[in-house]
């Protein structure tokens, strides 16, 4: 494992972190070569579906850095980055991937050393974890793809979009919602949407029965059936044919 060189993708905000990385360069501060930077205008622009997609495609680690809280060029874009990262963390956990493969931190334009330290630390950490199992284990890859699909879906996005407002300002009834309450709701919805997207992905490869899906996912067939009902309601899954005693479902193309 010593010669394992992890592939790491980094989303850097243009104004602080990217400038910090430049400063590291100007200062000739050395750090490992594993990082590949994608410049974005703001860390808040990092749609959780993007890192999940890269993890599914074999990235060993994904880091996101933005301006320090309060320093955001776009005022509070990094706060949104944090909210979205919360979803990313949940989905990574749901997919069964080590939490150490993702990271969110703040680097200012003057923190060249800090940037290098973060990259070095994260590279070591990921190296320690070894290669992304998604490359060799189709199950993990499927999970990550399901996580990506879930992150691209309306329900999770709507909730994350409302998180800041709900937990800081309260809801439309003027009732307060604690972070814990929100997290509880979120956890449930993440579980549901992750499983549903996973089912949908499996079915898009090969039509399957409820029992088949249960065997494939290790989830009780009864719960699978509930999800299939919901997926049919959404028009994502439809009956394909009946094989023996088992109706077999297929995924519908969704634009």
């Amino acid at each position, binding site marked *: 494992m010593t010669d394992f060189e992890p592939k790491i993708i980094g989303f850097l905000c243009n104004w602080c972190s990217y400038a910090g990385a430049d400063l*590291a360069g100007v200062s000739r501060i050395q750090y490992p070569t594993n990082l*590949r930077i*994608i410049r974005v*205008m*703001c860390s808040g622009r990092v749609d959780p579906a993007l890192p999940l997609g890269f993890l599914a495609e074999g990235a060993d680690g994904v880091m996101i850095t933005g301006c320090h809280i309060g320093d955001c060029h776009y005022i509070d874009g990094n706060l949104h980055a944090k909210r979205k990262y919360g979803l990313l963390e949940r989905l990574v956990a749901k997919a069964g991937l080590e939490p150490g493969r993702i990271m969110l931190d703040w680097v200012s334009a003057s923190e060249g050393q800090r940037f290098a330290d973060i990259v070095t630390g994260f590279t070591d950490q990921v190296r320690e974890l070894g290669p992304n199992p998604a490359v060799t284990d189709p199950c993990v890859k499927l999970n990550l793809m399901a996580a990506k699909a879930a992150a691209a879906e309306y329900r999770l996005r709507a909730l994350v*979009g409302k998180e800041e407002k709900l937990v800081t300002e309260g809801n439309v009834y003027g009732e307060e919602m604690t972070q814990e309450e929100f997290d509880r709701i979120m956890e449930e919805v993440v579980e549901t949407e992750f499983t549903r997207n996973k089912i949908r992905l499996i079915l898009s490869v090969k039509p399957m029965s409820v029992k088949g899906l249960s065997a494939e996912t290790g989830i009780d067939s009864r719960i699978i059936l509930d999800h299939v009902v919901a997926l049919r309601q959404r028009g994502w899954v439809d009956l394909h044919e009946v094989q023996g005693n088992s109706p077999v479902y297929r995924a519908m193309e969704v634009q």
Partner: protein
Amino acid sequence: MSEEPRIGVFVCHCGINIGGYVDVPDVVEYATGLPDVVYAEPNLYMCSSDGLQKIQEAIKKYELNRVVVASCTPRTHEPLFQSACEEAGLNKYVFEMANIRDQCSWVHMHEPEKATQKAKSLVRMAVAKARLLVPEEEPEIDIRPTGLVIGGGVSGLTSALSLADQGFKVHLVEKEDRLGGTLLKLDTLFSSNVKASEVINPLIKRVKASTDVTVHLDSRVADVKGFIGSFDVGIETRGEPEMLSVGTIIVATGADYLSPEGLYGYGQVDNVVTQMELEQLFKEGGRLDGVKTLVMIQCAGSRNEERPYCSRVCCTEAIKNAIKLVKENPKRDVYILYRDLQTYGIEFSMMEYDAKKSGVKLVMYDKERLPEVTGGKRGPMVRVYSPLLDEELTIETDMVVLSAPIIPNEDNEALSKHLKVPLNSDRFFMEAHVKLRPLDFATDGIYVCGTAHSPKEVAESVSQARGAASRAGIPMAKGRLKTAAITSVVDEAKCSGCGTCIELCVYNAITKNERGLAQVTSAVCKGCGVCGASCPERAITMRHFTNEELEAQGLAALKEA
């Protein structure tokens, strides 16, 4: 751009900065083999005029429609290469950079092989994104050369005059029936002890005389529409509506003073007054002749749970008045009961020194054991515990003067809603950045100055007012504003109008159209992309940083060279 991408890749040696660690020819060679790359070449300095010319020649010769430069950081060099592309007839947004210096050669100086591998990878990523780039337009908007100043106090008057001096028309909206604001109520100003009227009256006179400033007294802002360059502001003057068309807005609405009802006997014990009322007594003259003993109490209503902020001016003001009282009648006993004497700045500290010298008694009190004021035989009686002496003093006084804090205007809430700019937790207006953009709001074309922003003294207000006026003058002087092309765009077919983006956009760049769907005002959008990353329907695309582009970049990074 429907044509097939034809990409040119230009790899910079940057002297030895890159070339010394990265095998540039190898990278060029590698780039040639990437999809849609029709041309690649190295150069010693890509950014030299020679290098730029080479790019332009290649664009023509090889009919390039995308350009990738692998060199240093786009933060400094992108504009240069972009204009080179533009000169060669390409849209500047079909240009992409690979930062193989700051983020590669310089940081991997001891691992040339890996650095070369990484450089290839960075080029591959840049090419992957370049293949998807599309030309973007930078829309231009007109800026009306007219400013609106809200508030006719010292800040408002100053900024109005400053704008007029720059040659712009100004509308000045004041809610009272006369100009002047808080200064009308003050007698003298620290530290020069000039009469407040000597400061404010000339300003009022000049404003009145100016043909460029239109004053609207008894007026309030009722409605604000539009964005930088073309705000339509509805005002109401004694119930009569009027529409003002302006290009920029300065908020100079000032502040108010707390009336400290119930604090230290105010309103209950005779001869307990505020510093503002003391100023009035000064102005009226002779009213203080019988006052032998006078106690001033600082922080009367500020720096507490309700108002945690420091009102900034009170300490200096109290000292100014104390010195004045003692100088008027050296036999007077004047006490200042304080928590922390915050006479910041050299000049003000000197005043503190002066005060001590002239016999003003400075007594610190304990926040946990506040002074008490009760009615005494001849005047208010003050009991104060001094933690330094560890004993309680009882002072029989003729008058108690409370340093009541500056508080935000009541109408700040309404105005902030109209302008869609934020207030801080103390309900003062909040600037875009506390350090770097103290006079701007996040919303372009709207600025803040004076005590509307926070408690401050006259000189500070004046300099802020001038600063705000010059900030406002910049776009108006240009007359036109090229807005960035890197903005968000909504796909109406996908949008459900859930409003998430509208809530998240700090620039108020997104509104609902007549069908209830989101629409981006490009002129206002700053291109951060938060809306797009949050849109539940994924209906928002961020120009130049589309999901497809970022995805292509990342996937290219993961591909083995």
